[in-house]
């Protein structure tokens, strides 16, 4: 047992750090709120990584993966967090991509994988419905076979960033009479420019437009866009959710977040002293750091297991639950640190180029909206209660 990085790993970190410093398009992307970015800003880093061959590190090498060890992947995510990069979105890279190369046919692989790698094609996820959240298998969107097409009707919701999407992967009901709700579901790839698709914004409590309602009315989808077998979609969906959970811990990003929190709390004053020196506040920061350290070493243990061929199992549910709890606590403390200037609301309010004096410190603007926004993390990707159900069933055997 040891915690040392090998000389090769140290060299790899250096290489990665230099590559990010030399190539990350910071001037173009800026440091604004994530969901205020344009499509081009979102994809800029993804495209650069695509050219470098680093956009899909976890994929098998034959499909364009890097063949990095788990430790190298860990270093990669640490370095990106350190540099505050906008990483490739997960919908293509870590969600539908692995489903296509695992369950798709050769034609589907040839057609879709290159666009995911390069960042030319934007994917969104059509899973949840107004009546199917945690109980995803109760979904009602139907796909009825009509010759060489499926005719899809229904409504999806929480479709993240669908306003930019070229393609979507959808769970649809192909057998309404199946014995179990899970057995009548299929996994369809749908061109988001198809007639009959309408994407309507949902504004969330932070004021942002990140998620959407997606309405499908008589949308004609060629049968060649069916992944795997008809009515076996639930299997592929579960596979995808397991992939989604690993990496969801967000350890590197949270570590960077703690650093920023400490910077803010060193600037903010309480009784004329830096807030970070206040006994109550500093202990809350300590507790957060300690819990983050526990999460980090739990993730490292999981990675070590993966390196020995143990796939991300139900243990990854711990990473989801604890990772999101920490992300939430971090944004909560950051907002607390900001104090009075958490209140002013600037989204869509003209500031750039304004002659007025700035209101509050720059770091204050996003504090409250980020806190509001991050409440989503314990709800999405299988709510934290669902994760507990998974551990209870799969690990404790209850």
């Amino acid at each position: 047992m040891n915690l040392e990085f090998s000389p090769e790993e140290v060299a790899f970190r250096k290489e990665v750090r230099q590559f990010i410093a030399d190539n990350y398009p910071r001037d173009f992307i800026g440091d604004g709120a994530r969901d205020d970015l344009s499509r081009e800003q979102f994809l800029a880093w993804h495209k650069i990584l695509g050219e470098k061959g680093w956009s899909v590190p976890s994929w098998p090498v034959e499909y364009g993966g890097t063949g990095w060890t788990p430790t190298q992947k860990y270093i990669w995510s640490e370095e990106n967090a350190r540099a505050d990069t906008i990483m490739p979105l997960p919908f293509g890279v870590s969600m539908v991509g692995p489903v296509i190369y695992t369950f798709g046919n050769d034609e589907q692989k040839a057609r879709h994988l290159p666009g995911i790698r390069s960042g030319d094609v934007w994917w969104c996820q059509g899973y949840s419905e107004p009546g199917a959240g945690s109980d995803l298998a109760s979904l009602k969107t139907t796909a009825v076979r009509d010759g060489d097409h499926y005719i899809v009707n229904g409504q999806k919701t929480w479709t993240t960033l669908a306003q930019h999407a070229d393609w979507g992967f959808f769970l649809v009901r192909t057998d309404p009479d199946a014995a179990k709700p899970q057995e009548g579901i299929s996994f369809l790839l749908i061109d988001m420019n198809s007639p009959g698709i309408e994407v309507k914004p949902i504004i969330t409590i932070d004021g942002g437009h990140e998620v959407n309602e997606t309405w499908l009315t008589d949308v004609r989808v060629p049968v060649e866009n069916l992944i795997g077998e008809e009515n076996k979609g639930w299997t592929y969906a579960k596979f995808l959710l397991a992939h989604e959970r690993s990496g969801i811990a967000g350890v590197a990003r949270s570590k960077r977040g703690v650093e920023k929190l400490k910077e803010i709390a060193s600037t903010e004053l309480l009784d004329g002293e830096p807030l970070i020196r206040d006994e109550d506040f500093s202990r809350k920061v300590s507790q957060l750091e300690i819990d983050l350290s526990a999460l980090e070493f739990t993730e490292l243990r999981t990675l070590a297991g993966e390196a020995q061929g143990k796939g991300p199992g139900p243990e990854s549910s711990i990473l989801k639950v604890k990772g999101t709890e920490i992300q939430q606590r971090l944004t909560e403390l950051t907002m607390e640190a900001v104090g009075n200037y958490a209140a002013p609301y600037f989204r869509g309010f003209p500031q750039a180029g304004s002659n007025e004096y700035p209101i509050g410190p720059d770091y204050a603007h996003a504090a409250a909206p980020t806190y509001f926004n991050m409440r989503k993390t314990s709800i999405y990707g299988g709510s934290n209660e669902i994760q507990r159900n998974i551990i209870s069933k799969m690990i404790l055997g209850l």
Partner: protein
Amino acid sequence: MDFNFSEEQTMIRDSLARLIREKYDFDTRRGVVNSDAGWRPEMWAQFAELGLLMAPFSEEDGGLGGGAVDAMVVMEEFGKGLVVEPYVPCVVCAGGALKHAGSEAQKQEYLSAIMSGEKVFAFAYAEPRGRYDLADLETTATKSGAGYTLNGHKAVVIGAPWASHLLVSARTAGSRREPNGISLFIVDKSASGVVTRDYPTVDGRRASEVHFENVSVPAEAVVGEVDGALPLIERVADEATAALCAEACGTMGVAHKMTVEYSQQRKQFGTPIGKFQVLQHRMVDMFMEHEQSISMTYMATLKLDEPETERKKAVSAAKVRIGQAGRFVGQEAIQIHGGMGMTEELAVGHYFKRMTMIDHEFGNVDHHLKRYTALSAEELPAAAE
């Protein structure tokens, strides 16, 4: 990075687990705890035979060439079996102090005897008014001729009733709570003027109040630097804390497992109570606390040889997390066992008691959260203006 155990470590774990299964079942333990002696010297001899007592020492010192990870493996198994024998005070603390700072003569005489099981040490570091502050000492050692004379009162010295020797911290200079002026002594428990009052502890071990009444010790009894022993004491205390964290992991794991099994057998409202989601989620929370405790124990154990600040922060972080986890897992285990959890008869209550007392040893959650925060503050850039 590597989280694998070596072949030797796996062998130690397996043979110790077998020994505990065969000779340290719960009823046997109960008998031992309630006996006059309160421990089994012959079990200690078996531990020595298995190599447990020499596992964490280098080959030059006559050990098996292992280190803190080996002690971690041993303590996790001890935790699973609620072993009462004094591995932490004797092997980790006294053995550790000798390993780091003992003279060749001291190693010859004492460390070899610890490894063979012939001499048993207890670590007399705490005092009635000192709480968890290792420097808050009223016990004095005054120079007298070539040696020293000890006077004072050491509190809750775990394992002292079984010990042949004591490792004692005392003030050779400076005032109470001052970091400088502290020295560490080896004292033969049969020396004239050593007065002990022995008693059982709530978690099945034995301890003593130890009084030193003009006890003479020779100059060769000093371990490490005269007046400068605090860093050594802190290091040994950190190593002991990491070992206790490992013990807590073993204890927590068993308490959790017992709780899950109980919930599958116990029926209420016509159904096993383990079918109730409200209890399932609590048992999942126990599982997550246990897993994170293991992670923190690895982290702290693997950082014991890092520079002082990093080591102290790592150990304090682990002790905070494990103190909290142990309390949660223990309390939930009792709650989910219901009335049966309250009985002396069932093992789970004994696991609860041990977890509770681990929080009190070498600094509780509050103490370590404070130490961690203070060390973090030192790392901050100096205040502006």
